[in-house]
């Protein structure tokens, strides 16, 4: 199905494709680029150290001299903390998205290759995932094992794997049933060659598109956990935990909470817009 669709679509020159980008998607790309720059060059852009306190200017409102976005209850610069938080949140979400794609795709391929009880095991894992909302499961794990950056990334890496597993399994089975994969098996290729050299490159675009679905969800999940005090721990800072701590000063200094909240919303919104657009272009078969 997918193969046939791609086959008939003529290739258009890059320029005319770019011209067709709607304004909202263009905004999404711009914002994401801006976020990427913030994350990559956080150390250079940040005006202050994130723990540097300015006790003379506590809870300064946005626009104060030296503190564009104001300061928090300890007089720490909100802009500097925001830039650092963008880096932390994006790194976690990025790492987790990749882990989840790897994990899910591997399980999907294993299920397609071995069928039988391996497939049942994967279905059982997916059933388990569907039976416990991810936030609740993470809550239990983080609360009892304590929170560290690594544990957080690994835990988030289990988010959404079943989507990749389902896609990878389905595409691998259909490729193996009659298509090019069966032909390569017939040539004498080992399973690892069939999967890595032939099936993976062919399903990669579909998998990448589904990563645009997982990525914003992981950002929301991480910020939710951090908001509840179980994600990223101080002195490190993430978008969610800035909102969580800023909540205390909702009435007196709402900017402490609003600045990271706006960043979270714009980022997830941008990825969703860009992702939808990519999906329509590359692969209309997944939702």
């Amino acid at each position, binding site marked *: 199905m997918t193969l046939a669709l791609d086959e008939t679509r003529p290739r258009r020159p890059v320029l005319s494709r770019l011209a067709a980008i709607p304004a*909202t998607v263009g905004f999404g790309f711009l914002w994401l680029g801006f976020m990427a720059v913030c994350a990559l060059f956080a150390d250079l852009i940040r005006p202050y150290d994130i723990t540097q306190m300015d006790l003379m200017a506590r809870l300064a409102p946005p626009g104060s001299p030296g503190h564009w976005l104001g300061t928090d209850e300890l007089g720490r610069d909100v802009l500097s903390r925001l830039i650092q938080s963008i880096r932390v949140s994006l790194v976690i979400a990025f790492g987790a998205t990749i882990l989840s794609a790897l994990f899910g795709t591997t399980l999907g391929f294993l299920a397609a290759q071995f069928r039988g009880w391996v497939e049942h095991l994967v*279905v*059982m894992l997916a*059933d*388990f995932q*569907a*039976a*416990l*909302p*991810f*936030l*609740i*499961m993470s*809550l*239990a*794990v983080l*609360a*009892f*094992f304590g929170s560290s950056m690594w544990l957080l990334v690994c835990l988030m890496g289990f988010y959404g794997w079943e989507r990749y597993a389902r896609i990878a399994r389905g595409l691998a089975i259909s490729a193996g049933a009659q298509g090019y994969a069966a032909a390569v098996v017939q040539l004498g290729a080992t399973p690892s060659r069939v999967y890595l050299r032939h099936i993976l490159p062919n399903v990669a675009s579909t998998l990448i598109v589904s990563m645009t679905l997982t990525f*914003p969800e992981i950002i*929301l999940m991480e*910020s*939710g956990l951090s*908001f*509840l005090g*179980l994600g990223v721990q101080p002195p490190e800072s993430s978008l*969610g935990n800035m*909102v*969580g701590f800023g*909540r205390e000063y*909702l*009435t007196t200094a*709402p900017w402490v*909470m*609003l600045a990271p*909240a706006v960043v*979270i*919303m714009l980022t*997830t*919104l941008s990825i*969703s*817009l860009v992702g*939808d657009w990519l999906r329509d272009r590359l692969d209309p078969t997944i*939702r």
Partner: protein
Amino acid sequence: MIRFLSIRLLRAVVTVLAVMTFAFVVLRMSGDPAQVLLGPDVPQNVIDDFRAAWGLDRPLAQQYLSYLGQIVSGDFGISMRDRSPAFELVMERLPATLQLTVPALLLQLCIGIPAGIYAALHRDSLIDRGVILLAVAGFTIPSFVLGLVLVLIFAVTFSMLPSGGFGSVWHGILPTITISIGGIGILARFSRSAMIEVMGQPYIRTASAKGVSWRHVISRHALPNAAVPIVTIVGFMVGSLVAGAVVTETIFSWPGIGRLLIVSVSNRDLAVVQCILLMIAAVMVVSNLIVDLLYGWLDPRLRTQPAH
């Protein structure tokens, strides 16, 4: 049908068992509850007594078996914190959570699905674009941000509604909105795409081409077929409501199960956490089961399609 039902039930039971095992492993392996509850400066003999009293000194396998036995007989253990049965503690909080989640689910279904279908039927109109934008905005706003912004606007700035607590109908308004917005967005977007897909099918075109009235085409042909994919996502909505309840109840100091979970987790109150995890899992398994059965009932192909 019997075969399908029994396989599906078996899967449900296995899933619940897996969740029970997960809860047990995570909770018992992660640390010594005696140390946490009693604090660091307690003499060793007190700790030993505590461990013996709660059965924490036995081998893990034995603890696991007796734990399974207790659950099966309906005994979810006793809260280590206030010494009352965990099940009762959870049940006390259940009404508050239901007061939040049931209206929220109704809101989601009554707003999300019609909005999505309306948008699909008026594709590319101004209203369609508005619905899409609102829907995307709806599920990209984290519920904790939305809740706090609502508090900032309606409680802090205009003092129209209480910022938290429990009691009158007014207390419930902001939390219910907070918890339902994301799901409304997801449902609206999903219903729209399901409807658009159905409307593009040859049988719809055939029906309209042969002169069936538009209203009839929509109600007899399009809606029943669009219902199939929409039903599948409602099971997912229940899960997001449960997770949403944890965050929302924390923001609004709402005395429901979500807050109990957060408090019990930070107190390492094993029995209560286990009880909540199992209840959530049971609710999810049952709702997924219902969705599967509904799905089979709505889609006649599933009843006759040859299995491979």
